[in-house]
């Protein structure tokens, strides 16, 4: 699928190029490539992000998902292909550039400073200030209030926003990073495996946040390993494997089973079931995996017929 061929149906607000008045994507990548020294992390990846739509990126460990979003977030620069924001060619030289056009990111490693208090982390890089010129100071009380409110809205009731963030649990820290991005993301919200460390309830909250952001008209990029999280919220699915795109689907063109099958690969799952059985795995689990394998072979059969 080509990102250029715009499916009007998926555009919420009909973004248009200010000069030509033709429709453009909020953000699009065409043939993006990136290598770290001699390691090719990403090659020829194409995808688009639109207002009010969720683009999911799925793939195994090391598939290049984080590399992809780091290019959008301005942390790395691509060395092949084009990145367009509102139809305009861009290459962000720093995360500040990306933030300035309204792209906020929840990084996989969260990008928090452990020794700093929660409220300082929440507003890091985007502090609220009052006063003039050299006497500008931070509006500390307001920042603390907002931090507490935003986290309460996520279902995290903090003991004390003055606590160093390093003292929070992994999931709580993740929630701070998400709440921060949701609060500052003006146009595009990128989430790199936001549900990885979260409990069922908080995962639900995050998925709901994604939908709320979508409904507010933001373009969302959602990275996950879990097709069960991706499918209910996603509008488009980009599947990556070893740095290459192995599929780019509109929601209407794919089912959850097909998505799972594409991600895992039927043969690999069958092998896993076999191995688990040999290792004396719990019979229920083995049965479940076998069931999944059956589903996979069924659906892959359908897909490749």
């Amino acid at each position, binding site marked *: 699928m080509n990102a250029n061929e715009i499916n009007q149906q998926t555009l919420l607000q009909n973004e248009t190029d200010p000069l030509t008045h033709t429709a453009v994507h909020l953000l699009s990548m065409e043939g993006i490539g990136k290598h770290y020294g001699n390691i090719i992390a990403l090659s020829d990846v194409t995808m688009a992000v639109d207002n009010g739509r969720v683009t999911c990126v799925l793939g195994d460990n090391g598939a290049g998902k984080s590399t992809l979003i780091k290019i959008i977030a301005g942390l790395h620069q691509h060395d092949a292909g084009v990145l367009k924001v509102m139809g305009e060619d861009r290459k962000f030289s720093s995360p500040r550039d990306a*933030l300035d056009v309204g792209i906020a990111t929840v990084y996989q490693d969260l990008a928090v400073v452990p020794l700093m208090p929660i409220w300082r982390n929440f507003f890091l890089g985007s502090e609220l200030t009052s006063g003039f010129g050299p006497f500008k100071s931070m509006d500390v009380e307001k920042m603390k209030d907002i931090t507490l409110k935003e986290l309460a809205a996520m279902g995290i009731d*903090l003991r004390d926003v003055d606590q160093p963030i390093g003292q929070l649990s992994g999931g709580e820290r993740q929630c701070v990073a998400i709440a921060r991005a949701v609060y500052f993301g003006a146009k595009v919200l990128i989430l790199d495996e936001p549900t990885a460390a979260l409990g069922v309830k908080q995962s639900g909250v995050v998925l709901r946040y994604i939908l709320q952001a979508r409904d507010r008209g933001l373009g969302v990029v959602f990275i996950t390993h879990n097709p069960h999280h991706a499918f209910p919220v996603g509008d488009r699915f980009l599947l990556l494997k070893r740095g290459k795109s192995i599929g780019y689907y509109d929601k209407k063109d794919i089912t959850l089973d097909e998505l799972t099958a594409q991600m895992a690969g039927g043969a690999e799952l069958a092998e896993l079931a076999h191995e688990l059985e040999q290792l004396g795995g719990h019979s229920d689990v083995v049965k479940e995996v076998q069931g999944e394998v059956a589903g996979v072979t069924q659906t892959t059969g359908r897909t490749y017929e």
Partner: protein
Amino acid sequence: MTITQTKTKTAAADERVGKRSPFQKLLGRPEIGALVGAIVLFVFFALVSPTFTQPNAFATVLYGSSTIGIMAVGVSLLMIGGEFDLSAGVAVISSALTASLFSWYFTTNVWVGVGLALVVSLSIGFINGWILMKTKLPSFIVTLATFLMLTGLNLGLTRLIGGGVSSPSISTMDGFASARAVFASSVNIGGVEVKITVFIWFALVAVATWLLMRTRVGNWIFAVGGDANAARAVGVPVKATKIGLFMAVGFCAWILGMHNLFAFDAVQSGEGVGNEFLYIIAAVIGGCLLTGGYGSAIGGAIGAFIFGMANKGIVYAQWNPDWFKFFLGLMLLLATIVNLIVKRRAELK
């Protein structure tokens, strides 16, 4: 999977937090260890030496503390920002030499030299920071190189221009009296002569504290020291912040350099070597983490005060000054152990 819309909860008072008394809050501050140490040391010297608590003696202790403390302000901020400056000691002398040699050689008003020295001091800081950011080498190596280069330049240029190891006297030159009034005068407070550097020191500590606690630049300083990659990822200008910190050290070096020059009328070109460690020690005793991201300007000031008390207290107690270094080493060890415990408590649950 269905996603249900639930009402957002508002924060309620949390039963898991015991009310923290002001005393407990105080215990969480980085400089608390140093403060306790300073009080113990003060009481100790007050007991062993009756002269120690005399106003005049105390003014002398404060003056000694201020000559370390002024630099400790810049060095503490830099350490919180995650870097070292080994050239800070000789940079003070470089600044003083610039002012004296320039105004002497060109027979200008000394204020021209003072202005040029400020430019040179800030430039040394800028160059340190810039090389560090470009090469991504540890600041230990980069500033060790600048330390050696400045040491050589101080000696070489002084001999070349002034013809000796000491800069020529500038006491008869235009502007000397007014410059001395600004950088090296005393203020009479109730019959006690207090050196102006003490007030400059207090002012610098106040500004640095405000900067750290209340401004966005302060937030950035903690962040670049705590985790530079995370800071960059959320849009903090890491390079500018670090270069700015090195320049702040340069500014402090300029103030102390001008004091050293105008307290007399000449500077020894070989001085300053080794002082960089005193500034670092003051910052560390004051609770700044060597690894960055934690500390305070007040802590550095208390560290400098401990240094000043130990230095002069030993004299007032009429002990052999040989013991001074032992004291300093012991304080440093105790302070770093306290800091380590603090950091472990903050990082681990």
